[in-house]
């Protein structure tokens, strides 16, 4: 400091001879060092020079943006300038979000430059050196707030020619100005929907932009509730943020606002926008939601790696990890039991042939991965086409369900020993059978995915929700991780001969096991038939059941034929019956699919268990019930989601729960996704999900819901509802 003064003293006389570069002095105010710095080394008459107030802020302290948020106060500058010189408004850099307990502030930390355009009059005389003086007043806060003041000056020579950048600060000021939020011809509209202000921004510069952490900083301190999270929805042309209305938009507003202006901040860039009332443009929505931007730098209330939180803070790596874990856990979900039995049967059969077991394990892995990627690719393609579908969509089609039901039946019959696939080949060509075994393992993997994957497991939900909001390549990576996780246990088992050796030697026990394992498959077939009946109605059900009988007959006839062929007898008659049976089954299935679907009757309340009645869900119903002071629990479910059904039976049907709901004045709503439904898909996306189950508990009055885990217990639900009732 002393040294600098000394220098200034020595250099000052030189200014008499040559226009010295801009010079200023640093003022210490207690928690800040403040000075004026210039973008250019000199001022040119008739031009504008940017002079910035530079604040070097003590660690952990903050100064504030133009709208300080919930508390704080913006820096103010009063200029004293030579005659004819004028100062414009501060060009505010994008602030940081600073969380103080329940409060949300918009502030700066570390070092910040607040540039101000200074207009140099044409009458300024080259060769002169002018002094610009700024009286700056700012509030600086950490735990406590301290108002500080500084009067800072800058000596600036006036030159005739083009000015050179200030050697010390020119670059820095230039960068601050370049990074400052600017209008970019973006179209912005806002629409009020209850307490929510939907702010939509579209434009060329937002096409394909990364909207993670997108955030709107309003210029008015009363426009929005600063502390409320801003839900992000992506679109092809831009995004839509769901803001929570502040006083300006509330009933207390004396006049309805016409504009909502502020800064839209994305990663590494920011735009100044002014929104006018209008409908949400199509290009600002439709590509799924992203977790709301984090609470801010000093937030103590951030979720600490909650595996089940719909927001995935860590981006792709975390999504990949969660997807892998989700895949692993998926093996334990009730959906997968029937398929587990299939895998168990195939492992048991080859347990003592290490080479073949390994090959089978890999084939199973290939089947799982290929099917996952194919399903994901299809899902992404369909969504890109604008359809609101989610994970598990394949079971929303009655045709797929019908075919799967029959396939399950065939697998079960096969396990029961009614027929053997490739028995003839095996008998004829001995060693070649490895090939058909591999195909079988591949198909087992495929089947496992198709039937089991619609369930979402813990960890998986967040990862899937994340995946579907990402570019396709990223999404496929997430699905790949999921597939690897799902296949991992069996692949590892296949590569661990030590474990497999523990199984008894092949023998008669294996047939018993195989026959026993047929029953879970019959169960799966029965379940799919029931799902089908829910989708397609009673007439179709009758036709499908008839088809099932014919298919079973065809399977038996085929088995008979194979046996005869193996014994050297002619199988033609048996095969003929098989073909006829199969054809009949196919025709009946087609008939079943064409059968008139009974019109969905007036949706009535439906009993979910003793005493507790689930009403049909709609977003409006949730808002209305909340407004009536009720706690609302929403059960996002589907008949094809076994996990959902298990939860409904074990956790949502008991009399204890009914009593708790009554006591807490709570209501259960059911959103049934058995058939496709865009509203439900949108609601799932809103919570970062792509599939069911999803359980939400809304507090009374208003406000966002708590998300419950995918596996419920009665106690957990009661606890959540009681908590919501307390508010």
């Amino acid at each position: 400091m002393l040294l600098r003064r000394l220098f200034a003293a020595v250099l000052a006389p030189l200014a008499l001879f040559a226009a010295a570069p801009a010079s200023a002095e640093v003022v210490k105010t207690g928690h800040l060092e403040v000075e004026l710095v210039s973008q250019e080394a000199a001022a040119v008459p008739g031009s504008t020079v940017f002079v910035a107030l530079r604040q070097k802020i003590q660690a952990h302290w903050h100064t504030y943006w133009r709208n300080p948020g919930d508390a704080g106060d913006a820096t103010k500058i009063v200029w004293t300038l030579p005659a004819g010189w004028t100062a414009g408004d501060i060009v505010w850099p994008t602030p940081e979000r600073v969380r103080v307990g329940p409060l949300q502030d918009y502030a700066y930390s570390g070092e910040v430059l607040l540039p101000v355009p200074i207009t140099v009059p044409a009458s300024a005389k080259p060769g002169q050196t002018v002094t610009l003086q700024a009286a700056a007043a700012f509030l600086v806060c950490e735990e406590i707030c301290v108002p500080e003041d500084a009067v800072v000056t800058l000596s600036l020579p006036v030159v005739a020619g083009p000015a050179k950048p200030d050697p010390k600060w020119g670059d820095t000021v230039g960068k601050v100005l370049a990074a400052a939020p600017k209008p970019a011809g973006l179209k912005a509209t806002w629409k009020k929907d209850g307490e929510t202000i939907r702010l939509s921004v579209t434009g060329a510069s937002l096409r394909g932009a990364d909207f993670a952490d997108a955030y709107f900083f309003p210029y008015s301190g009363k426009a929005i509730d600063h502390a409320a999270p801003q839900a992000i929805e992506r679109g092809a042309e831009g995004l839509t943020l769901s803001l929570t209305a502040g006083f300006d938009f509330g009933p207390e507003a004396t006049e309805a606002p016409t504009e909502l202006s502020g800064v839209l901040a994305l990663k590494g860039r920011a735009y100044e926008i002014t929104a006018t009332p209008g409908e949400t443009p199509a290009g600002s929505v439709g590509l799924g939601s992203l977790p709301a931007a984090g609470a801010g730098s000093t937030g103590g209330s951030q979720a600490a790696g909650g595996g089940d939180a719909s927001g995935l803070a860590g981006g792709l790596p975390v999504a990949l990890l969660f997807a892998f874990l989700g895949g692993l856990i998926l093996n334990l979900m009730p959906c997968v039991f029937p398929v587990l039995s299939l895998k168990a049967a195939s492992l048991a059969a080859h347990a003592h042939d290490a080479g073949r077991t390994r090959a089978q394990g890999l084939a199973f892995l290939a089947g799982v991965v290929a099917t996952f990627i194919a399903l994901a690719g299809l899902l992404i393609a369909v969504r890109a086409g604008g359809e609101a579908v989610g994970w598990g969509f394949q079971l929303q089609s009655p045709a797929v369900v019908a075919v799967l039901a029959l396939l399950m039946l065939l697998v079960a019959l096969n396990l029961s020993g009614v027929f053997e696939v490739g028995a003839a080949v095996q008998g004829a060509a001995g060693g070649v059978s490895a090939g058909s075994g591999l195909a079988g393992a591949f198909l087992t993997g495929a089947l496992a995915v198709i039937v089991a994957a619609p369930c979402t497991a813990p960890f998986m939900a967040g990862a899937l929700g994340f995946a579907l909001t990402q570019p396709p390549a990223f999404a496929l990576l997430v699905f790949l991780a999921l597939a690897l996780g799902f296949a991992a246990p069996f692949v590892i088992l296949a590569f661990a001969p030590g474990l497999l050796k523990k199984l008894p030697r092949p023998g008669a026990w294996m047939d018993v096991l195989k026959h026993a394992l047929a029953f879970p498959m019959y169960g799966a077939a029965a379940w799919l038939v029931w799902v089908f009946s829910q989708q397609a109605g009673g007439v179709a059900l009758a036709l499908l059941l008839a088809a099932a009988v014919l298919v079973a007959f065809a399977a038996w006839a085929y088995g008979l034929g194979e046996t005869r062929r193996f014994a050297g007898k002619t199988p033609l008659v048996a095969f003929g019956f098989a073909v006829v049976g199969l054809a009949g089954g196919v025709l009946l299935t087609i008939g079943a699919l064409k059968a008139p679907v009974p019109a969905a009757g007036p949706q009535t309340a439906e009993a979910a268990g003793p005493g507790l009645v689930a009403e049909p869900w709609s977003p409006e119903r949730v808002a209305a019930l909340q407004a009536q002071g009720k706690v609302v629990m929403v059960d996002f479910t589907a008949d094809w989601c076994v996990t959902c059904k298990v939860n409904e039976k074990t956790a949502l049907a008991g009399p204890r729960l009914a009593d708790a709901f009554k006591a807490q004045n709570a209501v259960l709503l059911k959103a049934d996704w058995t058939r496709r439904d865009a509203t439900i898909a949108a609601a799932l996306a809103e919570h970062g999900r792509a599939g069911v189950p999803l359980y939400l508990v809304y507090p009374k009055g208003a406000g966002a819901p708590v998300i419950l885990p995918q596996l419920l217990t009665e106690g957990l639900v009661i606890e959540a509802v009681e908590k919501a009732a307390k508010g």
Partner: protein
Amino acid sequence: MITRRLIVASAPLVVLAPSFALAAPAPAFTARDIDGKTRSLAEFKGKTVVLEWVNEGCPYVKKHYSGNMQGLQQAATADGVVWLSVASSAPGKQGYFADGAQARTWMSAKGAKPTTLLLDPDGVVATAYKAKTTPHMYVIDPAGQLVYQGAIDDKPSNKVEDIAGAKNYVAAALSDLKAGRKVAVPASQPYGCAVKYKDA
């Protein structure tokens, strides 16, 4: 246990209490005052109530305790208005009063004249009202409706000299109420230091 953990993890997703619309009932509360008495909003039914969030160390509070706040308190209480100062600073934070005596010492040093001061170190009352700053002012009408919330005046600064030219929203709301008019400005953006809530 795992499920329990998941619930806890997802808890931060819950938005804090929603902002209440005006002309809505003022949130009920009970808190201990400087005499150790439990006071509740219910006991003041039929009277106009002013809530004033206070933190003796905050420069904005100091600004208004240069005489402005005391004057308002005196005029209001003389008019039959119940004026409750609320200290919501958590223990160890600026503006925390360990007991009533400590608060009383500050009050008499400043010549503060509220009906009483409520000690809210857990921030329960502040949370109910979503109090953001000190000062943060609320006016509740005799029917228990919240008719004003926000700043004390329209000059957000910490400089005493700005008081003179400022429009005082609380005084305006009180005179609107007294005259039986609708409160003209029912809300404004509060300014000042952040309420020193306990750490999450």
